[in-house]
């Protein structure tokens, strides 16, 4: 069993075979950190293939699942946990009144495949429920999706409620969805605007690095 083979199995979403391969590699004495490093690169590739629609959503999801399974096996073997790719916790949902959930689902998937822990609140989510869930989870980010001009004011409400509760600095608020923009993000005081799922993962990771630095 080689690291290359494991990467191939994860990429094609073969969860069980990936688990077996990961165990075999560890038994052969492979470095767990090296395994995680190379899998991170593979997932980046998967993300890029999806961005060009050379593969489709279900394939990304399966690769993500295989990755999670391998990480669960490899993680306990890490001597030094500070070596783990540090990624954040996110609560994400579609704001109240809005049923457009496709974009949010894709963002969630891309975050998960990039190592974030994501709590999905679904759609039609009350502003206060975002905050409640973030408190419960100990989240780093609150991600709010809105697809309609008639629902984007709800993104602003989340930020207003955070201020009212004295929690504004505790969370980074990330917004997205077709009618939103950098201008809107600036206007309502959101911490980050992302136009698509790919840049969301990258920008949020960068933000986290800044925070921990």
């Amino acid at each position, binding site marked *: 069993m080689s690291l290359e083979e494991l990467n191939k199995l994860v990429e094609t979403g073969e969860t069980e075979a990936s688990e077996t391969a990961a165990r075999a590699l560890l038994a052969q004495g492979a470095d767990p950190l090296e395994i995680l490093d190379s899998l991170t690169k593979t997932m980046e590739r998967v993300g890029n293939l999806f961005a060009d*629609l050379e593969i*489709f959503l*279900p394939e990304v999801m*399966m690769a993500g699942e295989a990755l999670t399974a391998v990480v669960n096996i490899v993680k306990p073997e890490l001597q030094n946990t500070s070596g783990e790719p540090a990624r954040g916790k996110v609560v994400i949902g579609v704001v109240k009144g809005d049923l457009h959930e496709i974009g949010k689902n894709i963002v969630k998937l891309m975050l998960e495949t990039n190592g974030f822990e994501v709590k999905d609140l679904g759609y039609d989510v009350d502003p206060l429920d975002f905050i409640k869930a973030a408190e419960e989870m100990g989240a780093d980010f609150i991600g709010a999706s809105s697809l309609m*001009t*008639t*629902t984007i004011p709800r993104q602003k409400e989340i930020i207003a409620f955070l201020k009212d509760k004295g929690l504004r600095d505790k969370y980074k608020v990330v917004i997205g969805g077709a009618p939103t923009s950098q201008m809107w993000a600036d206007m309502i005081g959101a911490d980050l605007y992302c136009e698509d799922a790919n840049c969301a993962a990258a920008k949020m990771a960068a933000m986290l690095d800044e925070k921990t630095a």
Partner: protein
Amino acid sequence: MTTAYRIWEMIDRSKTGPHIDEDDFLPRLFTPTLKKIIKKYEIKYDAATPLPADDAMADRIWQAGWELFRDVGVYNIDSHRIIQVTDEEIREALYVAKDRYWVGGGKDARLWKHRQVEDTEPPFCIYSPDITVDEHLHHSMCAAYLKEPLLDGFCAPILENAIGQLIASGGPTEINGCIQHIYNMRAAARQLGRPGTFFVAVGTAEHDAGQIAVSNNEWGVRTTDARLVGSLTEFKTADTLLNRSVHYAQYGCYTGSLTGPIYGGWCGGSEGVAVTLVAYSLKGLLIHGAMFNQHFPFHLNYGSNTTRELLWPIAMAGQAMARNSNLLYTSNGFANAGPMTEMLFYETACHALVSTVSGWHLWEMASTRNKYRNRATPMEARLGTEVGHAVARMGMTRETANEIALKLLDRYEDQAATAPMGRQYQECYDVARALPTQEHYDMYRRVKDDIAAMGVVFPF
């Protein structure tokens, strides 16, 4: 209505059907079943032929769509259960569905009939900009669309404000916007001397309450009109959506089922989109008692359906349904480019040509990736429906249509990702008179002449 008598059985099943977690429904049930079915029926996309003439494959896609709907069912995210139907019920519903309905009222009423592949009967043409518009432009845009001679039905743009207040989804301002929406439509239709025009309304209603608020035969949405009920992509529904179909049936208007399978999403590629389109039509019929199915498959990245990976499933699903059912279904164009660009005209023409020859009715035309306020005009819809009428009247074969589609694709396909955004309505229309500017008209004429040179014989 076709299957409204089963409404309560369907609602009941959403409480008693098999349970599955919402997170598992698509990855564990829908997509794997779809993949298996695509393999079983040997469905294969061919990029070289955006409009195939393969009857055997069309029939297999019909079977595949039927099987997908039967084996997967529809997930109600509120009850966390699956509504399932049997083969017998599908057969029954298809038998009971009529192949023609009178829609609209008085002298403006129209007979809307099922079409065949390569049918010489022109498609039923519903005009719709599919976008939001500034409040002060709404009436003008309604009038501009209702001025179109080939319009058989009309779905108006969507309001974001009413009486100067931003509409808040689900709140009282939404009800207010819905009333404004239908009043503008009615006023424009009466002013233009076609008061009985068939409407699909109102798009401003984001919730069941908004729809229910405008059901009124005197001033509102009439029983000779239709309204839409959406699906949560893919194959999911919710009580707020079922509320709509129950209300439409009980009010007595027509129901249209609105679905947009996504290329690159849970259906995968072109094959999956084709099969899912067929399955969605059965969903509309059986779950919502829909009289027609309104389909807008689109590309995950572009938000359009005028490139070949989307034209192929449109062509194949249309042929599958034309050959195997007597259903009514509209093909909703989504373009990359914006108004008053040659690209938008070519995209619309190509979408209309492929759809019409494959047995669809037309619903034209969402432009600029269906994303930007005020960016749609009747002119692109005019060209699309004129192409539809032309190729039907000519009895154009799929082979010829495929050749012309390739020529049209040649005009724009390489710009799908970078398409120009064009202009807003008020920049290429005289708003007061609701007529296109000369520059806009000239561009339409130029493209129409070019398409005529490709072999499309326009009736006028």
